[in-house]
């Protein structure tokens, strides 16, 4: 380091604002939340009362709460949908864009665009699309000759109706990441493969895919952790786990317990569970989709 940074007069001024903010609004509450999950809190915003008896009551309740299992199951499904549809569709689209000559910028702009729109607005928009009597989807099917209306929000369709928009919204995000990775592959590789007579599919299979392996690993880990944070769109389309508490995700169930049931300390415990789940799953994802060096 050059000597101008030897004198540290201003160093505290640079560091203190940011770290004070994070200490007060991230680190401290994070540990308080773990503590709270062992205490009894009946009203949001009121200091915690006594310790639960036994102190781990909430965690025993988590194990016996059928809605927890519903939300875990749905969140698991959300992760699979994220990996297969979000990352999968994004990969296919990115490979195609990489193989055509025109419109790269246009497709990038258009595919990314749903991400900047609030998930709440998209939730409302999809509510209108899947309306029973009759939204865009049912009108479309009617035009194709279907005579009965489908209730896209009933128990047998609810999960798909909730997860498809979430997956759809973020395809563009992974598209941009994968496309950036593909762009960084040297053109010389493709050139010499073409001289050797490699077909388009062979070039994709033996050059593009292996060289973006690590990018796909990043996407998969982001997908897994991202699926745990989903809240806005499901809560807008299916508030309170509608219908009959079948559509809860871990995030929406945490909110439901905290704000609707007013079992605040139980909400804290669910939040702790979400954190643990996030750590475990990103480790597992890191092992399954291991990065490679070339």
């Amino acid at each position, binding site marked *: 380091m050059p000597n101008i940074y030897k004198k540290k007069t201003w160093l505290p001024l640079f*560091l203190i604002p940011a770290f004070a903010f994070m200490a007060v609004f991230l680190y401290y509450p994070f540990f308080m939340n773990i503590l709270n999950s062992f205490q009894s809190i009946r009203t949001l915003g009121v200091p915690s009362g006594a310790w639960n008896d036994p102190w781990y009551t909430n965690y025993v309740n988590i194990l016996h709460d059928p809605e927890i299992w519903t939300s875990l199951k749905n969140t698991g499904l959300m992760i699979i949908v994220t990996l297969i549809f979000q990352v999968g569709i994004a990969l296919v689209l990115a490979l195609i864009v990489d193989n*055509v000559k025109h419109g790269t910028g246009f*497709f990038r702009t258009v595919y*990314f665009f749903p991400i900047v729109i*609030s998930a709440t607005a998209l939730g409302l928009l999809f509510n209108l699309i899947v309306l029973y009597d009759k939204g865009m989807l049912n009108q479309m099917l009617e035009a194709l000759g279907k005579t009965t209306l489908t209730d896209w929000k009933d128990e047998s369709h609810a999960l798909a109706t909730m997860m498809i928009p979430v997956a759809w919204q973020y395809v563009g995000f992974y598209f941009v990441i994968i496309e950036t990775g593909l762009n960084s592959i040297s053109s010389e590789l493709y050139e010499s493969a073409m001289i050797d007579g490699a077909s388009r599919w062979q070039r994709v299979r033996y050059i593009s895919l292996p060289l973006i392996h690590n990018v796909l690993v990043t996407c998969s880990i982001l997908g897994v952790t991202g699926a745990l944070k989903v809240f806005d769109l499901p809560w807008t389309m299916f*508030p309170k786990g509608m219908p009959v508490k079948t559509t809860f995700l871990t995030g929406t169930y945490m909110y439901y317990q905290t704000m609707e049931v007013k079992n605040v300390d139980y909400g804290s415990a669910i*939040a702790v569970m*979400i954190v643990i789940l996030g750590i475990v799953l990103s480790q597992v994802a890191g092992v399954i989709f291991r990065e490679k060096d070339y």
Partner: protein
Amino acid sequence: MKPERRDSDPKGLYIILILWALTTIYPIIWVIMNSFKAKDKILSNSFALPTGDLFTLANYRKAFSNLSIFSAYRNSLVISGTVALVVVVIAGMAAYALCRYEFPGKKLLETLVVAGMMFPVFATIIPVYRMETGWGITNTESWPLTMLSIILPSIAGNLSFAIIVLRRYIQTLPVELEEAAYLEGCSTLQIFFKIIVPLCKPSFVTVAVFSFLWSYNDLFTQMFFLRRPEMIGITRLLNELTSQEGTNYGLMASAVTLVIIPVIIVYIFLQKYIIKGMTAGAVKG
């Protein structure tokens, strides 16, 4: 651009690309179209263009008279604007210090920054709410205090990401410029504001835009801190609309349109920064 990596330009592939593009564009066009139609026309004939008898402005009149759209916009702009500004300034200073200075405890601070990205908002919101209730700034009649109650945690939520992105950028700047300025008699504080900030403008814009959009779209935090009708932000307004006017589809279509149009306009002009900002955390530099 790079014609040599593609021997031909197969037309069939464009069909797939255009089909997906339609799934992202058409729903938006559809909702804008239908915001100009009466409720019953949406349900019977949603694909027609709103021309002639179909066209009406009634939904918008209702939206402006019944919903507090303007105050929700103002609230959202105040919240997100302040968050973006404060995040850029203090994350920039921290990133600069972590980049250029050597000091004991630096490793620990760096770990704390990365750890900050791992804390989901679910795991901090309840204690934050209680802490702020203790300070007397939640659920009050005072507009500035209510704004403050949501601005503070939103700033903290964006800092980790901002520091990481800015730090990566400051690292690429040649330190000679700073040394020259130092010899001219600038203090490091002056160096930060007169050299680092101007040179890093693009990445500062990226971080500002990201923080702005993140808090503009964040429903979860707004559900906790913005409860009084006159204080809600734009996403909370939309969410309330579902429960209160759930069957007035024309009004919903016009409200969705009113909320997304400004975002679309901003996106068209700033897309370069937005796309970079939203994906910057993911792609290793």
